């Protein structure tokens, strides 16, 4: 089953009635909204920032903002809301603001005896987006690579291949044409593949 299909099913089963229910009783149904989307929104923030602490905080802020917005919206607007892309947009803004507000620094790396390198980023540690792609094997290392991709590739890649979102919805979240998102995903995957390839083939670091 493709990632996209997985997400769509989850969407259909649990959230189809949610906008209507929220319009009828925000307080009664808001917890359900958080339960439905917290994993996805958290993953997005986690892969964007590379930091579990930051991700939890940004995701929490996003849901609090969503609640406050819903309080202010007329019921018609809530009923017509496409909740998922809307929540992703709020989370995306939180991630972007966080990334811009913070001091950026390079992740320090040291090799162990096997010539392997381990990355132990501190909670707030982040790489400069333009000093991308050291090579590491394995999921954790891939996570580090993703979190250090330049923003436009990172956002597209996370939405499309980590969260399993379709191109049309991803384009909507990002406010970009579908073609742009596709080419960013393509280019991002290529960068990741090259970085991973360097890991597999060599022992030395290349910028």
């Amino acid at each position: 089953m493709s990632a996209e299909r997985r997400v769509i099913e989850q969407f259909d089963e649990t959230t189809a009635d949610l906008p209507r229910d929220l319009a009828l009783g925000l307080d009664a149904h808001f917890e359900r909204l958080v339960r439905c989307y917290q994993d996805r929104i958290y993953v997005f923030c986690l892969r964007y920032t590379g930091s579990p602490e930051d991700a939890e905080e940004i995701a929490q802020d996003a849901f609090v903002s969503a609640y406050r917005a819903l309080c202010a919206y007329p019921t018609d607007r809530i009923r017509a809301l496409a909740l998922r892309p809307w929540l992703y947009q709020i989370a995306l803004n939180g991630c972007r603001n966080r990334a811009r507000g913070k001091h950026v620094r390079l992740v320090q790396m040291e090799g162990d005896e096997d010539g392997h390198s381990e990355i132990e980023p501190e909670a707030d540690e982040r790489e400069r987006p333009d000093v991308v792609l050291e090579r590491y094997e394995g999921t954790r290392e891939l996570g580090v690579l993703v979190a250090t991709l330049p923003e436009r590739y990172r956002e597209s890649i996370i939405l499309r291949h980590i969260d399993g979102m379709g191109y049309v919805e991803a384009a909507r979240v990002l406010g970009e044409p579908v073609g742009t998102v596709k080419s960013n995903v393509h280019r991002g995957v290529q960068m990741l593949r090259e970085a991973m390839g360097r890991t597999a083939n060599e022992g030395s670091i290349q910028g």
Partner: protein
Amino acid sequence: MSEGYQATIAGTQRVLDGLHRLGNVQAPSALLPGVLARVGLRDAYWQQDSPIGPVYVAYGEAGISAVRQTSTPAEFEEWYRDRFGRPAAQVARPPRPLADVVERRLGSDVQGEIEIDLRGVSTFQRAVLQKTMEIPRGEVRPYGWIAREIGKPGAVRAVGTALNHNPVPLLIPCHRVVQTNGRVGEYAFGSAAKRAVLEAEGTSPDLLEDLAKRGVRYLGDTEDHTFCLPTCAGMHRRLTEPRFVTFRTPQQAVSAGYRACDVCRPALAS
């Protein structure tokens, strides 16, 4: 198909598989309760270090609602539900601004606004608690002083009861309120804890007990002829006799020609 092309296909697939795996993460369990607390739908609490060891601190939309020492989270939750009629769920930590201000309040820095949820508290109790917040660190005031200051001089016992039901000990410093005879007295967390907190703030419980034993409730400054509560830092900072004289009652001080300090307003104490 070239070898290089096949390697590229394999590499791409490896990346896509890896990305897919990166999506298999669940939100931390504290995320939902944290959100619900902040929007006012359900309270949350966390474990916090304090001068008397770990305590549980609960909060909701209207601010900090409770500070309590229990041996287990389950015990705290049961107590919370009994006391407030609503549940609280544990979170790893509160939002950063809240954590910071609580940390500072429990330490030596009293700066920073702290929101305390006193919605479930009577008007009288609120007056008592607000007055208690005015007592500076390192000083103490008698129950009778609080009663007089809030305009209810006859309600000394009710002040004691109100403080005993302080929902947020440590943050509202009910440990700085002592018996009218000057002894350290009771405390929501036990009198040993009260002594420990006072000690941590630089107030000597032994000195308080010693003065109480000797019947000394006021100190008079022999130079400027004002009299104070013993811990008042407003005018008198040192117990360096013989510069000080001691009094048992305000009347005694007044008839000796002393006037009340206008910082600690000692004559209000009965």
